[in-house]
């Protein structure tokens, strides 16, 4: 089956992806599957997931739209297809998710030729893992107030400071780092670096545990860490501009190198229907309850609206403001995930009290887990409250809240 929206080349590539995934999907591991790359823990899991990404990259399913000289496939419009097929096949997700969705596009836009050739190929193949150093204990939603300092010393920069909520830092070789190089100006005092993590002198990585009970992210301490000037991304003082590129990709306004994996939103709606149909309720099933059907239909509508918004965002004559839809997508997507999780919990009723690892838990305890975990998304990458400020100010022209 081809997608109705595919070009002939995409349709052929989709066929290839399906065949390849059927033949190469790895067997289920002995460990319990983490729900996303962020939750990967331990050496056994690291190896399992990095091997899988390496294999997918070699087969052309990762970095498909990246130039060949940087380790990509050199195609156009193939990554969406590969990501969709990865998602549908139920295959494991990509491990290097920060690298693929944030570091790679940022390096591609702002990096020097040497930086692109050095960093992109091992990023795509997962031979090197990436993390992101933006947030600090005192710089969350107000990201530009970051205080981690980089001071120039000859051909090097000396970094001191404290980053938090750093996913994958415990496996990372590199970090995209936003650091302060001047105190004269809040925004123009920031510069963007590629910082060494694993084995680097002066770097301490400490795990943080999420409300879901999983180790997911870390805090990273920098004590006189040396970064060569060749690992500065773009000009001194342009860190905020570069960070905006990263955030654009992080917030889903543009497509990265494809992190793949995970069920699609449409699949999650179908999973809700299946859950409702097998959950007993007053002598019938939850699906027989009109209120439940109404709530699931609301989800289906929001999922389709997101898809159609993405289609309309590219039709200038049917949009009133160029950033109106792109700036919404982070809010819409993360709240949709949250509400899907919450609805699964509600439909399962008493069965949703069972969590990951309980054999009787519906869908392996995924619903309460997804619901709790979704707060990471509504808070991260600029909390949704900040996103609403941005939308109100930039699109509707309302007075700045700051």
């Amino acid at each position: 089956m081809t997608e109705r929206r595919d070009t002939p080349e995409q349709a052929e590539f989709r066929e290839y992806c399906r065949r390849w995934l059927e033949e190469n999907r790895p067997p289920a591991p002995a460990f319990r599957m983490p729900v996303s790359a962020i939750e990967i823990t331990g050496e056994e899991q690291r190896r399992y997931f990095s091997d899988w990404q390496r294999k997918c990259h070699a087969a052309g399913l990762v970095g498909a739209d990246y130039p060949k000289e940087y380790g990509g496939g050199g195609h156009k419009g193939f990554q969406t297809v590969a990501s969709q097929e990865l998602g549908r096949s139920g295959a494991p997700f990509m491990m290097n998710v920060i690298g693929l969705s944030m570091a790679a596009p940022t390096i591609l836009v702002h990096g020097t030729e040497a930086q692109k050739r050095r960093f992109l190929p091992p990023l795509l193949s997962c031979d090197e893992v990436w993390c992101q150093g933006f947030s600090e204990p005192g710089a969350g939603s107000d990201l530009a107030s970051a205080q981690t300092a980089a001071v120039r010393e000859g051909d090097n920069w000396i970094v001191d400071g404290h980053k938090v909520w750093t996913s994958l830092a415990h496996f990372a070789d590199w970090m995209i780092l936003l650091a302060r190089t001047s105190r004269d100006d809040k925004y123009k005092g920031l510069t963007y670096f590629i910082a060494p993590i694993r084995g680097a002198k002066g770097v301490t990585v400490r795990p943080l545990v999420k409300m879901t009970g999983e180790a997911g992210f870390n805090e990273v301490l920098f004590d006189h860490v040396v970064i060569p000037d060749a690992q500065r991304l773009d000009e001194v003082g342009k860190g905020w501009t570069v960070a905006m590129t990263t955030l654009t990709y992080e917030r889903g306004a543009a497509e990265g190198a494809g992190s793949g994996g995970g069920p699609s939103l449409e699949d999650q709606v179908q999973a809700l229907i299946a859950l409702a149909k097998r959950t007993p309720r007053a002598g019938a099933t939850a699906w027989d309850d009109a209120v439940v059907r109404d709530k699931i239909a609301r989800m289906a509508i929001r999922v389709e609206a997101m898809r159609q918004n993405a289609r309309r965002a590219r039709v200038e004559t049917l949009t009133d403001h160029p950033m109106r839809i792109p700036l919404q997508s982070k809010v819409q997507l993360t709240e949709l995930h949250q509400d899907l999780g919450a609805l699964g919990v509600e439909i399962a009723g008493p069965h949703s009290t069972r969590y990951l690892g309980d054999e009787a838990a519906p869908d392996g305890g995924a619903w309460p887990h997804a619901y709790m975990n979704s707060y990471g998304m509504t808070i991260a990458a600029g909390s949704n409250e900040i996103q609403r400020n941005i939308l109100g100010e930039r699109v509707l022209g309302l007075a700045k809240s700051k």
Partner: protein
Amino acid sequence: MALSKDFGFGADEQLVRDQARRFLRDSVPADRLRSMVARDHHEAYESALQPAPWDEGVWKQMVELGWTALGVPEDAGGLGAKAILRATIAEEIGRVALPSPLPATLAATAVLRAAGASAALARIAAGEPVTLAVTPESGSWDPDDAGVAARGSGSDVSLHGRAAFVQDARKCRRLVVAARGPGGIGLHVVPIDAPGVTVAPDRIVDLTRDQATVAFDGVRVAPGDVAAPDGRGAAALRDALPEILTLLAADLCGAAEWQLQTTAEYARTRVQFERPIGFFQAVKHPLVNVMMAIDGARSLTYAAACAIDEDPADALRLARMAKAAASDAGAFASDRSVQLHGGIGFTWECDVHLWFKRQKHSEQLFGNAPVQRAELARMLASG
């Protein structure tokens, strides 16, 4: 088949839509609308007969611009335009909350097109306003439920009974009547002034429309005025449903955008506590939420319109989604537009109630949001 990435909205469609936007903005600004429908609250709500004011001059110009011909196939003397163009025109009509028989006529056109009634379609293309009389007094939107019965056959057919919720009946010249005959539901085209037709206007909330209950007391139907014979009418109504829902969704989206922009303008200029009130997040964030609700509904509306032409099998699903989302967006925009205008928003003199009332009306037609979602759930479970 690859669906149009641009919803089929090309340069030609853009030209007509932009012209429509300018024309409506210039000919029916808010103060003109107010002087037409809300000059006096006594006249609007308390007099024995609610007026149904509208501007026939504007209608004539719209006919000249070809808008009544948009849904009529070329072989019936129309323009055979794309559904996406009709949707964007309906959106512009909603934006200015225009009192006009055009929405009713476009809905009737969709039904007549599905029935293949070329004579009636040709009259519409030439400028005759027509409306649907297909709903029984129970308010059921099921095409198999008609409040009118057709008796007799051949050249001796007569209609008996009542059709309710007939939109803009007093602005239209002809009715498309769904009637149950011996062989099932048929469609009959009847002049509004035919002997035996009585139009009893409803007293309604919306000041920008009129609505009536129409009684048929032995109304004779000429053989040439049978648009769909017995047993074929319900299918035509069903085939036209995606377009009817899409046009209503478009009207809701256009009106909601007016509500959003008008309220945002108020939030930019109204000062309290030494700041424009849009500074406060209790005002700013709800307005952003309204915007997001409109955008989802608008994208679904365009997707449904595109599917009507390019993927008819999927059109009803998308149209139900669009009508549900647009009804919710219209309700939400209405709610916040009055509330965020504060005290003035509650008064007759503030324009926001005109759009509020139109939205409440549009929400209910052909199934409000919960009704659409109930139907959608059925489709989701079987699909």
